[in-house]
């Protein structure tokens, strides 16, 4: 469910950030008020836990398997706020360090898999209570958390053609409307990923109840009883704000056309007029043959692009000799600017030139980076592109431009992020906030340790398995292993706190 960069227009991802940031700050404050100095060690350990949970393949009866997110397990065991925080951290690390999931789409991903999934699971579990069999309750909580999260993602994707199309009505971002995205995505999650999540939730929580005779590790004091109102209010805001562009007739976030200024300000600022041609003009508005009015814009565009990348080039060169935090920050900022420019631009040439410059600057690793980008692009875009070609051809609305810009944008953004991963030490970028950089580093180091242990678990299981295991045996294996990681996360969290105390570090 990780939406990559390039699928979502700024009309959607900017409001999503505006909702996500206050919400995650509120969550942090709420947890911090209760846990105090234990907050960072615990959240980082639980982030590692939820990372490792995402590695498990849950065999579903019928011969297939899917991986769980673990939001339901986290939310029921530790409370929804802690679940939301941990999953948000994991998604941030996945986007920034593993290149999995977009940067522009991060807020949307965290809202769906973190916020909506955690709270849905938690309140489903509480509302069903003892009305149904406990195992069924666990299953439904997990299942519904995924289904609702996928519904949110499907709506976000599905409104893209309506809010981000060119003058001729051809989609510029995700190409399918709600009629396709909702049944396709929600359907798959109802039948497949939701079942995996439900099964996982049921197996793990049932096992914990059997072994520990307790239902949760909910940390005393983080009262979530009245948070259903916070949840509903936030949900209401999300529903209202995220598809803002759809509800208002006016252009939204960064996509004003020039008449907006003529109407409001009486005249169009000169610079903006130039810029607007660069960023917001689809090729269809300017036939390539008719070059003269466009030439000036391209010239300014090129200058801007070259400046950005010259900076990038300079800093990356210097970086190989000296690894200063300031440079890393600037490089990261340049990267973010480049991502934003590409994410909001609808001009093939503009994106193409940025990509070209990035390719030229990527140095000796260019082939590796290209291969890496192509592999990911194939997985995320191929099906959508093929489906779009078929569908649009049938409905006679096929546009080469849509197909090209969608794939080019995703490709460029993926390439940028892989290039950034190679050049920038993300941890030093976040040094402006001691807590945040501490949280990221602690989470990441524990993720690496957990990942290694997880691999050893799978190897040991392989080594000890003499005949092909039955699904039930695999489920027992998953339950035991997960409980091991839960215990390990709890132990690590206390040990980290003690280590901090012994060195007199206060956070």
């Amino acid at each position, binding site marked *: 469910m990780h939406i990559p960069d390039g699928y979502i227009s700024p009309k959607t991802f900017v409001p999503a950030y505006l909702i996500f940031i206050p919400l995650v700050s509120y969550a942090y404050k709420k947890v911090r008020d209760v846990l105090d100095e234990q907050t960072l060690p615990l959240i980082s350990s639980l982030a590692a836990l939820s990372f490792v949970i995402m590695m498990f393949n849950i065999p579903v009866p019928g011969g297939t398997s899917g991986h769980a997110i673990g939001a339901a397990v986290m939310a029921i065991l530790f409370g929804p706020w802690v679940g939301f925080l941990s999953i948000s951290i994991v998604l941030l690390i996945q986007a920034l360090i593993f290149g999995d999931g977009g940067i522009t789409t991060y807020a949307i991903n965290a809202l769906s898999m973190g916020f909506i999934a955690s709270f849905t699971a938690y309140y489903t579990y509480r509302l069903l209570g003892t009305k149904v069999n406990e195992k069924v309750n666990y299953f439904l909580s997990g299942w519904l958390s995924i289904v609702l999260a996928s519904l949110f993602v499907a709506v976000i994707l599905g409104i893209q053609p309506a809010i981000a199309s060119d003058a001729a009505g051809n989609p510029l971002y995700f190409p399918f409307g709600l009629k396709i995205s909702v049944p396709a995505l929600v359907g798959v999650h109802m039948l497949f990923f939701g079942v995996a999540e439900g099964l996982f939730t049921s197996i793990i929580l049932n*096992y914990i109840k059997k072994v520990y005779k307790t239902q949760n590790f909910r940390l005393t004091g983080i009262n979530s009883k009245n948070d259903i109102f916070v949840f509903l209010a936030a949900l209401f805001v999300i529903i209202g704000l995220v598809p803002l562009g759809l509800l208002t007739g006016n252009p939204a976030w960064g996509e004003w056309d020039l008449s907006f200024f003529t109407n409001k300000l009486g005249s169009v600022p000169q610079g903006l007029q130039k810029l607007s041609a660069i960023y917001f003009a689809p090729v269809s508005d300017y036939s390539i043959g008719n070059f003269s009015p466009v030439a000036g814009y391209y010239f300014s565009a090129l200058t801007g692009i070259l400046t950005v990348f010259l900076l990038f080039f300079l800093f990356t060169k210097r970086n190989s000799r000296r690894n200063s935090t300031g440079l890393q920050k600037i490089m990261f900022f340049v990267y973010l600017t480049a991502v934003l420019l590409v994410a909001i631009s609808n001009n093939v040439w503009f994106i193409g030139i940025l990509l070209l410059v990035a390719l030229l600057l990527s140095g000796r690793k260019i082939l590796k980076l290209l291969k890496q980008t192509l592999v990911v692009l194939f997985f995320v875009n191929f099906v959508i592109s093929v489906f779009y070609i078929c569908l649009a051809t049938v409905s006679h609305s096929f546009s080469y431009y849509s197909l090209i810009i969608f794939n080019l944008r995703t490709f460029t953004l993926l390439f940028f992020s892989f290039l950034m991963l190679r050049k920038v030490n993300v941890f030093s970028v976040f040094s402006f906030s001691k807590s945040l950089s501490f949280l990221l580093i602690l989470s990441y180091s524990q993720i690496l340790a957990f990942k290694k242990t997880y691999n050893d678990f799978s190897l*040991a299981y392989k080594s000890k398995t*003499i*005949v092909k*295991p039955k699904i039930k045996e695999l489920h*027992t294996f998953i339950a035991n292993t997960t409980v091991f990681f839960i215990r390990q996360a709890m132990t690590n969290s206390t040990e980290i706190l003690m280590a901090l105390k012994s060195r007199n570090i206060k956070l």
Partner: protein
Amino acid sequence: MIRLENISYAYNGILALDNISFEINEGEKVMLMGVNGSGKSTLLKLLDGLIFSKKGNYFFKDNLISKKKIKENVFNTFFRQRVVMLFQKPDVMLFNPTVYDELAFGPRQLGSKNIDSDIKYWAEKLMITDLLSRQPFNLSCGEKKKVALASLLIINPEVLILDEPFSYLDPQSTEWMVEFLSQLDKTLIVSMHNLKLASLLSNRLLVLSNRHQLVYDGNLKAFSVSSEKLKSAGMFTNINLY
């Protein structure tokens, strides 16, 4: 029984084993040493058919071990029944609700009839009878190692691969483990860091260098008294550790 021919292995382009060749006969006890990061664990995982080298050949009882071969269910069962491995961290091997289930895991898979008596026998032999009803993850590290070892031995394997079996063990448990292993009538491949302990178990030593090559295959005593050989393997120390 085991034959390696020019095996090389790399993790994401980083070399871990470089052109390794040796043979191990049935019933032989072989010690494997080398500095941290020399590739011992990689070699052991390769011998257990968990990872596969792209260069070179590994034969077990004249069967070429490859990813494809291990995927065949019949061969997989044949191989896993005969070659088992004790991981360095015993935690990763324990995935059953009780110690009893842990020991019963293998025999149940094989459809064995006398599971109860087998478990009783091995639990007594490894002195873990009192633990049978406990949860494996609540045990001490030494106990976990014993439980993991019992769960391997109960299926009566021919080759036992042990990855640093003495790490995390106190002196008493170490002594017990050495005695237990030396009396075991199996082909043993053991990685460790302690020459003295190694000499108690066997006289054949394989040494991996920090460049991931096999720099020594031969008599353990001859190696341990030669400071030149120790130095070349990066194992020479000025303090007498043991």
